[in-house]
């Protein structure tokens, strides 16, 4: 059984930018422990001599001619944004007070 602590889950949630509630942290701590224990099974056969596969179908680099392709207009790109000034996405302050 893997030991996952609530502190670890809080840290992961910070990395993933999800403001989990304490109830969620507690539930996920238990679930994550059980899940990690189960998926650790891959270690039984993934020995050092086996090459990893990242992509199912072998492909080389794919190039295209260096010309302007289909692009969105600024208006189209902004259309779904929660907030914008017509040419730029508008966000809350990037830095906090202590920074």
């Amino acid at each position, binding site marked *: 059984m893997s030991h*996952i602590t609530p502190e*670890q*889950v809080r840290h*992961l*949630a*910070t*990395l*993933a*930018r*999800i*403001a*989990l*509630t304490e109830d*969620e942290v507690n539930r*996920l701590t238990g*679930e*994550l422990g*059980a*899940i*990690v224990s*189960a*998926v*650790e*099974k*891959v*270690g*039984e*056969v*993934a*020995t050092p001599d*086996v*090459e*990893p*596969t*990242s*992509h*199912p*179908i072998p*492909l080389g680099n*794919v190039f*295209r001619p260096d010309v302007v392709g*289909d692009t*969105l207009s600024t208006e*189209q*790109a902004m*259309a*779904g*944004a*929660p*907030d914008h000034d017509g040419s730029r*996405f508008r*966000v*809350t*302050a*990037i*830095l*906090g*007070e202590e920074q």
Partner: protein
Amino acid sequence: MSELTRLPAIELQGLLNAGEVSSREVTQAHLDRISQVEGTVQAFLHVSEKALGDADDIDSRRAKGEQLPSTAGLPLAVKDVLCTTDMPTTAGSRILEGWQPPYDATVVSKYRAAGMVALGKTNMDEFAMGSSTEHSGYHRTANPWDVERIPGGSGGGSAAAVSAFEAPLALGSDTGGSIRQPAAVTGTVGFKPTYGGVSRYGVIALASSLDQVGPVARSVVDTALLHDVIAGHDAHDSTSIASPWPSMLDAAVQSAAAPDLTGVKLGRVLQLDTEGFQPGVRQRFHELLELASAHGAEIIDIDAPHFDYAVSAYYLILPAEASSNLAKYDSVRFGLRITPQDGQVTVEDVMAATREAGFGDEVKRRIILGTYALSAGYYDAYYGKAQKVRTLIQQDFSHAFSQVDALITPTAPTTAFRFGEQLDDPLTMWANDMTTIPANLAGVPGLALPMGLAPEDGLPVGAQLMAPAYEDQRLFRIGAALEALIVARDGAHVSSLVPEPGQPRGEVG
């Protein structure tokens, strides 16, 4: 119910091309059917207001004598994972509620160019994470066979829509079985093409090394018909396969007309025919093997020892890739934004509050798991090892395909389960995909078709065929033959036996 909604797409196509029915009539019949059953089935997240207008456009072009594609005027349903400029696109998530994409997915452009009429967007597990469609951020979808049961997932909406005759055809996406498992539990047909066979441009990404778009229908021939519309190279998707594809429809039509399996070698995967499977699923599976054998197929037992590790590898690779792909939902460029009201907040607080409010439990679970699997110090132990298992599974497939033309397995280990039955137990829920995940890990094509009803519960059971990468046409050939043989044996296609939604299903003989 209008007769038109019960017709196969291939027959509707013939009537449309002969001018015997208009696209408006066909489209209206399906919209009427949607109005009639949608209160119970809830397969759709959005029904298009412009479907009839699109149909009229096709009819008037046809009336003017314009040469139209053979599929012109055929309606279809579209999984909400595909970007559509004329309908909202949410991938079943509240974080994208009401989002109207600024561009069409290539697959969407293709069905438009083929003159097909979109009826609406179908429900799905949020960001395609799930096997029951219970993880949709909006509502659940009922299995037309038993409205207290799940329609499978993540493409439960598309499968339920074709099963309940709300659409003759639908589009799906399959990362670990999201086209094939819903087909199995709703008595319909679904196809996951070779990885790269269909463009993923404009498809909301779940796990990029696994995702593939494919067709959903009530017969192998109709599934092939839709596949021919969407398959092919796309310069917008760098994983798209450049070589052209042969017609799946021609192969399926030919094979269905003269079903013969002489000389075909089918491999029964030992790891996917075990005591852990529901008895009725195994019974129908063994009957199918006997049927294939009686019509010339040779059945060979295949040992694929690493298939037992597929689910574990998948639930490391998928969350890892998903946690990266879903980073884009950051409240800046599209979708939801929640701004905390207490004290001074930064953009990071806004992102975290937005993602907390906009994502459901399953999505959070997988993002946290993926973040863990990719963390410094754990990467080699988890993600790295899962990628090695992927190699071993590919080797199992290569070994198998040196002996047989195709593998045959049950599509899912059980029939449709009840709502809520597995909702609090992610590991049990994830095990539903043990049969379908290997094909995604190896990139090979998989075709799911119904093989009967389970004696114990009267619910549909599905068979899955898998072939080597690029051999998609072989699956349509074998699948159409098997389907024709099953219909000849049973006297009816499983999909035609579905009760009216909410009505009890018949006894199984």
